[in-house]
């Protein structure tokens, strides 16, 4: 960081400008407005406890205005701090208003000084912490730790209920036979749908649904039932998709379909 000494408005010497710009360009290096304030405060070269907050506020405001002149975008929190410092500056300069209830300018300034001192203190504490001897760098743990042999003893258990259920399962397993379709006699909706998609183009006028049953499925009643159900379900699906129209004159009457005219 170059010394931002003489960094004041109007002081347009080359050195000052360079200093200002280097500070600005480094704005990414600052961890927020408080960090920037802390950096600026160093130019006062006094103990943080005797720092002039008023002067610091002016330095900060000058920094912000220079940044603006250079068309450098500052993050919102830097601008919020600028606004707050401008307010603080006015409170510090104007005689206190006895009617005002809020904290005095001095109180606010004292708090800012405290914040800066605290941040500085934490910085130093962090540095002292990191300067300590560290494990794996300055001192070391046992490099060859001896394996704790964890003798894992597995104890198996079962309850009487487990035992009886197991036995019951074996002796009655046929009753537990999962219900499975006899695939030979099942005509699926997918099959029906596929079949009908090919046929509906020829269904210009009302045609009985039963006509669409595949021939080899019309003999055996079980197979016929399955094929009818699947074909009906498929026709509902096609109607829903807007490909066909369905009609039934009365309950249990034959169902007829035709291609929907487009």
């Amino acid at each position: 960081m170059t010394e931002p000494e003489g960094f004041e408005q109007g002081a347009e010497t080359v050195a000052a400008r360079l200093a200002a710009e280097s500070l600005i360009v480094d704005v990414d290096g600052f961890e927020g407005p408080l960090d920037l304030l802390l950096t600026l405060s160093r130019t006062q070269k006094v103990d943080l406890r005797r720092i002039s907050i008023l002067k610091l506020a002016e330095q900060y405001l000058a920094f912000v205005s220079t940044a603006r002149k250079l068309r450098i975008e500052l993050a919102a929190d830097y601008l919020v701090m600028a606004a707050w410092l401008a307010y603080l500056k006015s409170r510090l300069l104007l005689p206190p208003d006895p009617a005002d209830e809020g904290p005095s300018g001095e109180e606010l300034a004292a708090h800012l000084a405290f914040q800066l001192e605290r941040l500085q203190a934490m910085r130093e504490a962090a540095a002292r912490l990191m300067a300590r001897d560290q494990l794996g760098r300055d001192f070391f743990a046992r490099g060859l730790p001896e394996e704790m042999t964890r003798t894992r003893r597995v104890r198996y258990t079962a309850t009487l209920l487990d035992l009886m259920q197991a036995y019951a399962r074996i002796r009655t397993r046929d009753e537990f036979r999962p219900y499975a379709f006899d695939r030979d006699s099942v005509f699926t909706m997918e099959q029906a749908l596929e079949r009908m998609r090919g046929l509906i183009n020829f269904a210009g006028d009302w045609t009985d649904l039963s006509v669409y049953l595949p021939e080899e499925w019309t003999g055996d009643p079980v197979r016929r039932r399955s094929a009818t159900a699947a074909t009906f379900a498929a026709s509902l699906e096609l109607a829903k998709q807007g490909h066909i129209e369905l009609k039934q004159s009365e309950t249990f009457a034959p169902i007829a379909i035709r291609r929907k005219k487009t």
Partner: protein
Amino acid sequence: MTETETEESGHAPSLFQAPPMAEQERMVEAILFASAEPVTVAELESRMPHGCDPAEALVHLRKRYEGRGVRLVRVGDAWAFRTAPDLGFLMQKEVVETRKLSRAAIETLAIIAYHQPCTRAEIEEIRGVAVSRGTIDQLLEMEWIRFGRRRMTPGRPVTFVVTQTFLDHFGLESARDLPGLQELRAAGLLDSRPMPGRDLSAEEAEDEDQIGQSELFED
């Protein structure tokens, strides 16, 4: 310049005095402690300041650890700290883990309990699948089953019976106290619905021939 170099590489005392032996001992101690593997004397020497004598430091160090909880031991041509052999028991931790018996094991156990004495072939017949050697071994090891008398049939197969340990574990006085199928059903342990008109006792005989869809039931 050339002279100094010759001197340093030779055995003559170097410019830098070697640390006192007590310090060398500390160094060896720290290196051996932190190293992930046993360290040779040559390596100790290369890591310690010039002029050190790790071999001698090792002698002192070894003596220092005599009778302690850890000892300095030689591993091949390298050195390492090791737990004193008499304290090895401290390096063990017994973890008891409770696990549910596998389905195969519990079924096998159930069959033995209900049908004892029972041969392996009989177990397999009832379960409908082969019984692995491991399953039987496990139950034997748990002392829940033991060998019974040999069956007086061709091949004289061994039989299995349940043990007192088994009865104790399940809180039974004898294996005859195990509830029968009817009772299991009455107790709601069987949620199967018997087929209408089918006699439970006749079930067994019928089952096999009639349905014959054994492939559905393989475990």
